[in-house]
C-alpha cells in the first residue's frame, strides 16, 4: 500500500543569509548525525556558504539574518518572489534578535561609536526581522535556531503539513525535564515569557534563559518586570535584560 502521509518527491531548498552571525547555518551544518538523512528528502539548490550554485526558484527558502541595509531589502523581495515557502531561521530573521539592539540608540550615534568620522561610508537601516518586509510563512526561533525545532519544521514541510508553532513558555519544558528553577538558585530568568521549543536548553545547563526565542503570544510583560525587580534587578536592568533579543518589539526602537 502506498504511503499516505509521507512525501513523494524531493523538495528543493535554498539557504540565504542576511545580517547575522551565520550561527544558524552553522548550527545546521552541525546536524552531522542527521545531514545525510535530510539530504534524502531535499535537494539543496542554493547555499552560498557551502556551494557555488545558484537557482531560479525553490520550494522552501530558509533565511537567516536581519534586514539592515537597503541592499538587504532588495534581496529579500527577490527571494520572496522565487520561494514557495519562506522560513525565517533564527532570532535575527524571526524577531530581529541581537541586531535590533542597535535600534535602541539613535542610528547616527551607533555609527559614530564604531566607525568614528568614517561613519558615512556605510549605509544602515534599523535592524528588522524578515516579516517587517515580506510575508514569512514559518519561523524557527532561537539564537542559534533550535535544532529540535528545525527538524520538526523540516519534517513537517517535507511531509507537506504545517509545522506546529510552539506558544507555551520555556518554563513548561523546564518542568517536563524537572529542572531546578533558576530563581531558586538566586538567578533571574526570562523563561516565564519566552517561547518554548528549545527544550529549555539554557536552564538545563544552569544558565538563565536570555529570551532568544522571542516572547510568547500575549506576554504579561509587566508581571515579568515585577518578577525581575523582585529578584534584585533595577527596573532599568530588568528592561535591558528583556530587550537583549527582543529590542525590535520594543516601542522605543524606532524613535
Amino acid at each position: 500500500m502506498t504511503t499516505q502521509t509521507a512525501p513523494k518527491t524531493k523538495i528543493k531548498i535554498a539557504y540565504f543569509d542576511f545580517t547575522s552571525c551565520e550561527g544558524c547555518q552553522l548550527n545546521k551544518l552541525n546536524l552531522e548525525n542527521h545531514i545525510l538523512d535530510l539530504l534524502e528528502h531535499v535537494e539543496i539548490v542554493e547555499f552560498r556558504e557551502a556551494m557555488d550554485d545558484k537557482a531560479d526558484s525553490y520550494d522552501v527558502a530558509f533565511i537567516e539574518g536581519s534586514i539592515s541595509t537597503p541592499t538587504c531589502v532588495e534581496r529579500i523581495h527577490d527571494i520572496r518572489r522565487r520561494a514557495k515557502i519562506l522560513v525565517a531561521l533564527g532570532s535575527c530573521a524571526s524577531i530581529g534578535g541581537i541586531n535590533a539592539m542597535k535600534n535602541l540608540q539613535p542610528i547616527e550615534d551607533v555609527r559614530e561609536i564604531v566607525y568614528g568620522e568614517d561613519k558615512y561610508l556605510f549605509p544602515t537601516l534599523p535592524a528588522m526581522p524578515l516579516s517587517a518586509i515580506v510575508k514569512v510563512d514559518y519561523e524557527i526561533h532561537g539564537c542559534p535556531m533550535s535544532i529540535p525545532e528545525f527538524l520538526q519544521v523540516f519534517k513537517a514541510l517535507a511531509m507537506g503539513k504545517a509545522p506546529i508553532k510552539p506558544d507555551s513558555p520555556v518554563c513548561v519544558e523546564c518542568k517536563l525535564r524537572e529542572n531546578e528553577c533558576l530563581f531558586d538558585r538566586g538567578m533571574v530568568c526570562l523563561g516565564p515569557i519566552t517561547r518554548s521549543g528549545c527544550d529549555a536548553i539554557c536552564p538545563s545547563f544552569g544558565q538563565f534563559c536570555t529570551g532568544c526565542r522571542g516572547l510568547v503570544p500575549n506576554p504579561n510583560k509587566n508581571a515579568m518586570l515585577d518578577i525581575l525587580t523582585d529578584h534584585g534587578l533595577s527596573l532599568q536592568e530588568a528592561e535591558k535584560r528583556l530587550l537583549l533579543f527582543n529590542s525590535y518589539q520594543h516601542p522605543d526602537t524606532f524613535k
Partner: protein
Amino acid sequence: MSKNLDINVHHLTRVEGHGNIVVNMKEGRLEKAELQIVEAPRYFEAMLKGRSFHDAAIITSRICGICSLGHQMTSLKATEDALGLELSEQTILLRKLLVNGATLQSNVLHVYFLVAPDLLNAPSVFPLIPTHTDVILRALRMKRLANDIGDIVSGRAVHPITPVPGGFTKIPSVGELKEIRRRLVEEGIPDVLETVKTVKALAGGIPNFVRETEYISLKDKNEYALYEGDIYSSDTGITDVHDYRSITNEFVVPHSTSKHAKNARSSYMVGALARWNNNYSQLTDTALKAAEELGLKPDCYNPYMNSVAQVVECAHCAEDSIKIIDQLLEMGLKDEKPNQTPTKYGKGTGSNEVPRGILFHEYEYDRRGNIVAANCIIPTGQNLANIDDDMKKLVPEIIGKSKADITKHLEMLVRAYDPCISCSVHLLNVDFIDDTES
C-alpha cells in the same frame, strides 16, 4: 598576456559572510586588488554600551556563529580582567578543552567542506557525497566529535551556554568526559591521521606562492598558545595583551565595512599559519609528525598553506584534549559555582587564539558592572590588509593564466585565510573587471 583585467567576484561563496574580490588591471598596471567587505555593519561595540557584565559574552558570542566560542572566551577574559575575577584551575582546563574542540571543529569544517572542493574541482561538498562517501562521513564524524566536546562542556557548540564570567554554570560529569576521551582515542586520532593522508594526496593542488610578511599570534612559555599567552610578532617580538592597540593600529578603508590593521609593515597575518610559524615547537608529537608528512616547515611564507597548518592543529587539538581530560579526571571534578563577585571595576582586556587568528576584546565597566566602552578586534579584520597585499603580489605572477584560473586562484587565496566575515562584520567577494580582449 592580457594587459587589462577586470575581476569582480560578487559575494564569494564558501566563506562565512559576504565579501567581493575586485581586481582591476589596466595596461599591465594593477590598479586595484582588494577584498571588499560588504557585510552589513552590525555595531556590536555600540550594542554593548550599558549592558551588564552577565550579558557581555552573550552578546559578543553573536558576533559570529563560527567563532562564537572564541568570542565568548575572549569576552569572559576581558570581563574577568576588568572586574578582578579569579578563576579556578578546573575552569581554565575546561576552557582550554573547549578551545581545542572549537578549533578542531572549525578547522575540519574549513578544510573538508570549504577548501577540499577547490582541490577536487567541485563547486561544493554536496557532489562529493556519493563519490567520496568515506571521506565525508569521516569529516562529519570528526565535526560531531569536536562539537560534542562543545555540547558536553558548554551546553551547545554554537553560542555556548555554560561559560560565564568566573566559571561555568554546569560542570560536565566524569562519565561524559571519559566518553569523550574514549572517542578521541578511538575515532579522533585515527581520523586525524587519515585526514593527513587525504590532504597529502590533494596537496599538489595547493598553489606555490610565497610572500614573506609579519606573523602575529599569542605565545606562551608553557604550551602551544591558544587560550593563554602574550602577543608575539615575528617582527617585533613580545607585547603585553593590554597594549594590543599598539599592534593592531586599526584604520578604516572605503572598500570594507570591516576595519583594517597594521603593525610593523603595511600588513600582517594571523591564524593557523602565524601560530605555526611562531610556536610550532610546542605542538604535540602527532601534530609535528603530521606537519612533516604534509611538508609544512617552519617559516612558511605561502598563505595557501594556512589550510595545511589547520590540519596540523587538528592533530594537536585532539591529542591535547586527551591530556586535558586526563588532568581533569586526575584532579577530580568539583561542582564549582562561578566566581561572580567583582573585586574592582575598570578596564580589562582579553585575548585568545580563535581558529582564524588572534582576537581581542576590551571593556570598561562602571561601578554597577555595566559596560561604559567596548572594543573588539577580529582576526579576519587583521588579515584583510595582508590579503590585499598578497593579491597585489599574486596577480602579476599569474597574469598569464586564463581569467577563470586567475579568479580561482584569488578565490582560493581568500578562502585559505578562512575569513570570517560575520566576525569582521561579514565579508567577501572577488570582483574581476575585465575590459580587454583577453
